């Protein structure tokens, strides 16, 4: 059973205000119940898929300044800082 408290905890983790948490409870629960199928699968391998790259094919350590002034495209103050709300 998914409870309102749990939905609100999840909402806090992903930082969204839920106007109507109740709306999500039933659907999230229904979907999670469906996901429980995964618990009954019998696996014969612990491997996971994932692509690989050889270390030597990684990016060379070279400084190439960004050709554009990125900050001009962002929300900024007159000193080119990004303004965030207070932290406490």
């Amino acid at each position, binding site marked *: 059973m998914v409870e309102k408290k749990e939905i609100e905890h999840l909402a806090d983790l992903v930082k969204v205000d839920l106007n109507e948490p109740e709306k999500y409870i039933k659907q*999230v629960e229904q979907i999670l119940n469906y996901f429980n199928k995964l618990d009954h699968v019998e696996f014969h391998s612990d491997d996971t898929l994932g692509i690989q790259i050889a270390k030597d094919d990684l990016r060379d350590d070279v400084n190439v300044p960004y050709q554009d002034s990125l900050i001009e495209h962002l929300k900024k103050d007159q000193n080119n800082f990004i303004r965030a*709300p207070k932290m406490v």
Partner: protein
Amino acid sequence: MNLGISATEFVSQVKEGTISVEEFVAKTLERIDKVDKKIHAFITVDSQNALDKAKAIDKKIKSKEKTGVCFGMPISIKDNICTAGLKTTCASKMLENFVAPYDATVTSQLKSEDAIIIGKVNLDEFAMGSTTEFSSFGPTRNPWNTEYVPGGSSGGSGASVAALECLASLGSDTGGSVRSPASFCSVVGLKPTYGLISRYGLVSYANSIEQIGPVAKTVEDVAFLLNIISGHDPHDNTTAKNPKIDYVKDLATGISGKKIGIISQMTGDGVDKEVASATNTAISKLQDLGAQCVPISLDAVEHSIAAYYTIAAAEASSNLSRYDNLRYGFDFGTEGYEFKAFISKARSNFGPEVIRRMLLGAFVLSAGYYGKYYLKAQKVRTMIKAQLDEAFKKVDYLISPTMPVLPFKVGEKIDDPLKLYLTDINTVTANLSGIPAISVPFAMSSSGLPIGIQLFANSFKEKELLQVAHALQGTTTLPEITP
């Protein structure tokens, strides 16, 4: 002027001088003006720029300057692929005014081949959905019957091509998002092998499984676009370093002697009667062309929806974290807010489906649940890939209907997310395993709704996949859309 020509035909007519780019683009813009009020495929139409580009390309052709292979072909781009100077909204209020400062790799590849980006097309918010109803800017409608959904999430791509509002489109496919609208709108849509096309500039939803894919009227057009946008990109470490392939060449090779596996789990119970019968017809037509069709069982497919949505939700919850409205986003002053209150309020502008998936994603990644859900889902991927590898030892291709159902009405399934998720049963396998899959329009239902057939090949076998798709395309004649 016939806007119903294929992209390939457009190129030869422009080269022959029978049509001018400007004229074609102007007519296309007129068409958008006329039909898009009803269809709502476009979020942004870049009219003036498109006309300017068209004139410039006409001039280049006249003065015999070297012209890119697209010759001014009007193309629409899904609004989750970055286009410098043109809004990239992801159909989300969070990004309603966002203009990317750079071009996605596919965007610059198209531009450098003289394609004209005529506009940005609609999608489910951040590509999460399979009907395009979850766009914050309103749903896109199926050009064949506007009461019906066009599929999704690249519904704008499918609808804009089908409604003759452009010659081709780029979509993105995370769990079927290119193939579903291709099927529902009666156009061709390809989900390439993971790593064939650069994702640089594609706004991430589930980055371990999604790919950009072309949508067009014909298999030839899809091959043509693939030639332009495939290949290794130094901006994307997940692209493969394979030699360049010409997908257009030898497209009509035929399929004589090829073996095709019919996936039992995708053709049996739960498939709409008309869809099932169209699939059987497709199989027999392919046999007529010399292919041998045999049933193949992939039992891991049963777990594919649970695995797909677990992975997609988990990755979505992380990928969408960056939208906190501090660096970009809509106008919303920080004054008077504390950090968490501010971002939580800003982020409540996400639509309900996005929020639902973020909540699910947070749950499956939570301490204590990772092993139960996410890790298991990853193991399902391995299992599916292993079963596919086995299958491809026996057959060259796999076949299924793209969608197990016919297009349904707008609003019909919007309140039942799980029911909607289950309609992805035939498409998510390609994403989980990374293999390529294509949807080819094949039939019309008795009610006049499109049915698409899906073909799969093994990883990086797009050339062969396009050959069988081309063969299938040749076995059917479909109605043209009435203007």
